[in-house]
């Protein structure tokens, strides 16, 4: 904030010690009326308001027309006036004079400097002055040539034209494209052009026509790269927002699946969509999502990673508070649970809110596999989480403070292996952990096959050489390797990253105070984890605090047993299926087919 004075170092130090009153601006998800009843979907969904109540943060979808100021010189030039180029005098409504429109559009798009914005002037039916604007590469040239220009320039198409604004006639009688929408404001027209739509301006019309021609190159649907499964859907999102939304719509064929659209970046006009099911999602959560999205004021949002940082509740926490997934099936399942999905143009990931800790150790595979296998996998992953977090710290604590707790044989084996190592064990661990992180980072940054090779060679050669050079003990290589495996087994990348950083915290605590230090660290970590929220929902719910009986936290019960939607997010319709969802267990096999 430019208006605020930057605090001096002394000021910052003093502020750390000074008492500050509580700031209570956190969003709290209120319980719904009739919270205790496990009722079904309300018949009348019309009284469920999903509109944001905060008009002060109405955002782009409401005030797009007033957000982008027109340069003073431009408007002065168009109007032939001088010295009145303030905010209030900028044009908003489209002029009926096509020349004014042409001049404004050229000026807005910096033509002729800007070479990929195409303006094609022509006479509609040989009579009315008109022009179309589109961006080369964003619009499909075939559609523009064959279905717009060819027909607009054909006088035969205009035989029944009786005069007046030609756009009405064009929409109804001339164009054979699937979408054409009249726009009244320049800002809307410009936004549409930037998205690949072709806009038609005609003389004597105070509006323009946005004709759907989007047709840019995009990547096809591919297999998920980070959330692969053995059973289940094998498709991932793409960078294209429309394709991603369609992928969800293909799974949830429900008329109440609502798709709303936001423009976020001021300069790049980034697109973000939110999807939820009216009648299931809690209206307060939806409103809060909209409020946060609409309030963002930045020039550039490059996809879900940046958006996540703008909307999360606790940016200083090491653990993520929104769930990201590249799988349409997982997104759809969460939407059906009553959560809200946020999709952005440019990255093949969906953000799902609210999220809790347990969602980060679950994978879509858990649901596709039989419940016993899914449950075992989850317990394996939670063990991996603790191994990744604590194992090196525990090793340090054991070797430095509590060697008497090791069985004699193991203690002798460890001390023998450490005999020739000159460093204290904490230096050894920090050295190896840092090397491991370096190998991992280098493996990601170097291209393709070399990366994989580097990872293997780095790990093997470096480990072997370090042991041979008596820099580290062989047992430590095992500790670091198992810790690394544990970290890789955490299914969520952000959580795994948080654990990587927290691990160093526990190594230091183990180094300075052994098991007691680790215990104190665990208490601090848990205290923080249970006190944070994701969009009003406690992060450790539904376990801490307890929120209803959930058959899908760590232990995953059979799908037919999961009768309620997750309680902590307070969905409007809590009931997922009846008490007996397998109707056949009530009936009897036909006569003669029974034992």
């Amino acid at each position: 904030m430019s208006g605020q004075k930057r605090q001096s170092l002394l000021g910052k130090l003093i502020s750390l010690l000074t008492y500050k009153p509580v700031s209570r601006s956190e969003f709290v998800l209120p319980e719904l009326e009739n919270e205790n009843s496990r009722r079904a979907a309300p018949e009348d969904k019309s009284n469920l308001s999903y509109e944001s109540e905060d008009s002060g943060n109405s955002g782009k979808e409401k005030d797009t027309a007033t957000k982008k100021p027109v340069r003073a010189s431009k408007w002065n030039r168009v109007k032939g006036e001088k010295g009145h180029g303030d905010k209030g005098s900028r044009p908003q409504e489209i002029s009926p004079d096509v020349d004014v429109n042409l001049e404004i559009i050229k000026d807005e798009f910096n033509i002729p400097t800007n070479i990929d914005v195409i303006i094609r002037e022509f006479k509609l039916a040989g009579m009315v002055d008109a022009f179309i604007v589109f961006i080369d590469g964003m619009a499909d040239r075939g559609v523009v040539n064959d279905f717009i220009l060819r027909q607009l320039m054909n006088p035969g198409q205009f035989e029944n034209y009786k005069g007046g604004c030609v756009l009405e006639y064009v929409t109804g009688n001339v164009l054979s494209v699937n979408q054409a929408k009249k726009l009244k404001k320049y800002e809307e027209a410009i936004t549409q052009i930037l998205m690949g739509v072709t806009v038609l301006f005609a003389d004597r019309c105070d509006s323009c026509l946005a004709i759907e021609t989007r047709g840019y190159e995009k990547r096809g649907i591919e297999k998920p790269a980070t959330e692969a499964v053995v059973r289940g859907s094998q498709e991932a999102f793409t960078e294209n927002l429309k394709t991603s939304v369609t992928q969800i719509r293909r799974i949830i064929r429900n008329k109440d699946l609502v798709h709303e659209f936001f423009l976020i970046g001021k300069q790049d006009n980034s697109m973000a969509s939110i999807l939820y099911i009216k009648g299931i999602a809690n209206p307060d959560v939806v409103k809060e999502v909209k409020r946060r999205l609409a309030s963002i004021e930045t020039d550039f949002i490059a996809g879900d990673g940046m958006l996540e940082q703008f909307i999360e509740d606790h940016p200083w926490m090491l653990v993520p508070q929104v769930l990201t997934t590249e799988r349409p099936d997982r997104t759809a399942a969460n939407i059906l649970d009553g959560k809200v999905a946020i999709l952005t143009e440019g990255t093949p990931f969906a953000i799902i809110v609210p999220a809790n800790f347990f969602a980060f150790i679950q994978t879509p595979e858990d649901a596709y596999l039989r419940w016993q296998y899914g449950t075992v996998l989850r317990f394996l992953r939670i063990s991996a989480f603790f191994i990744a977090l604590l194992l090196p710290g525990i090793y340090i604590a054991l070797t430095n403070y509590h060697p008497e707790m090791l069985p004699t044989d193991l203690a002798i084996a460890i001390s023998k292996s450490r005999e020739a190592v000159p460093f204290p064990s904490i230096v050894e661990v920090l050295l190896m952990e840092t090397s491991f992180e370096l190998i991992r980072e280098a493996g990601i940054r170097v291209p393709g096959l070399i990366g994989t090779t580097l990872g293997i060679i780095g790990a093997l050669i470096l480990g072997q050489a370090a042991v041979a050079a008596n820099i580290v003990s062989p047992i430590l290589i095992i500790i670091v390797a198992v810790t690394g495996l544990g970290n890789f087994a955490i299914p969520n990348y952000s959580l795994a990253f948080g654990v990587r950083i927290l691990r160093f915290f526990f190594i230091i605590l183990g180094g300075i105070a052994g098991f007691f230090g680790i215990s104190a660290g665990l208490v601090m970590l848990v205290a923080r984890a249970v006190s944070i929220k994701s969009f009003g929902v406690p992060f450790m719910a539904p376990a801490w605090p307890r929120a209803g009986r959930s058959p899908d936290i760590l232990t995953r019960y059979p799908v037919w047993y999961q009768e309620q939607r997750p309680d902590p997010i307070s969905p409007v319709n809590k009931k997922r299926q009846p008490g007996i969802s397998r109707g056949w267990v009530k009936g009897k096999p036909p006569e003669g087919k029974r034992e």
Partner: protein
Amino acid sequence: MLREGKIGVFEAISVITFMSATKVLYSSSRALVEASGTSGWLTTIVSGVTALAGFYFIILLMSRFPGQELVSVFETVFGRFAGIIFSLLMSVFFLLNSAMFAREFIEAVKVYAYPLSPPSFLLVIFILAIITVLYFGFECVARTAALFAWPMLAGLAVIVILAVPLYEMSNLYPVLGHGPACIIKTGLLRSSVYGDALALAVVINSLQGSEHFKKSGVTAIILSTAIIATGFLIYNLSFPYYIASESTIPVYALTRSIEYGRFFQRFEAIFLFVWSISGILASAINLYFALSTYSKVFRIDDHRALILPQTVIIFSVSLIPLDISSIAYEHVNHIRQYGSAIYFGIPLLALLVAVIRGIRGEQAGA
């Protein structure tokens, strides 16, 4: 007004159980073994039953004043000045409990695991953890306690199961230890071990109704009695009386004796985690109730302003006792023996005054 949020029954039970049952892991249990011989487990059951009776009076008192927490009840019954005195007495008692937990833990951990570390260094780590828990408020305290409840119970269960080969029925004899009179007398005197359930009355508005208050308090007392009685039972089963009365930290001594072949031996590693986490939480919870009572007495809106000063007091007070012997035989022993006067005596007095003077809460007559 202090905003403490809402907690559920399980969280309330966890909070009180951590306050009460953690005592079995420290030095005061040795005093009980000395006082009642092999019947420590019976004595503690007597204490539990006495505490349940005491808690019944607290329930009666609170049900006369629906919607009011204990500090407000004291002010209504005794008047503002006397009410403040009684509330502050409670606050100081919680503070003292917290400080003694801290020192007891530090002394024990120093003796067994960190002989070279200065107590003040260990205390700083201990207090840092307490500050973190308290900073995020009562909901955080309760949820942290609830989260650690199962792992702590599982840790204790592992110790109980693994110690089975050490059990010797003859060690329990004579079952009545120093005699029934001693069991009853010691049991009544030490009923303050389970008096922590009173703390629920301080935060009764955070519980969802008086039913939750009753349920949480009674269950917590029964659960704590079961845990402490089991602790004494297995300790008495494992060691003969003459050895049992010599160990500074009985349960720790028990874990060190566990051995399954050459490899699986010395399970104090598990115990150290149980010990540290329970100690930190018990001290943090006691300190929270001290802060909460104090804030309510002086109408302080935000308990966070008091955390740093109170932890400095904890640090100083906990370093006052000279050594572990003076903690076990003087400070903690006095707290256990005379604590009932605070935990049950003051509420009972308030109830009597309320009944005699016919005072009821504003909502009670509605």
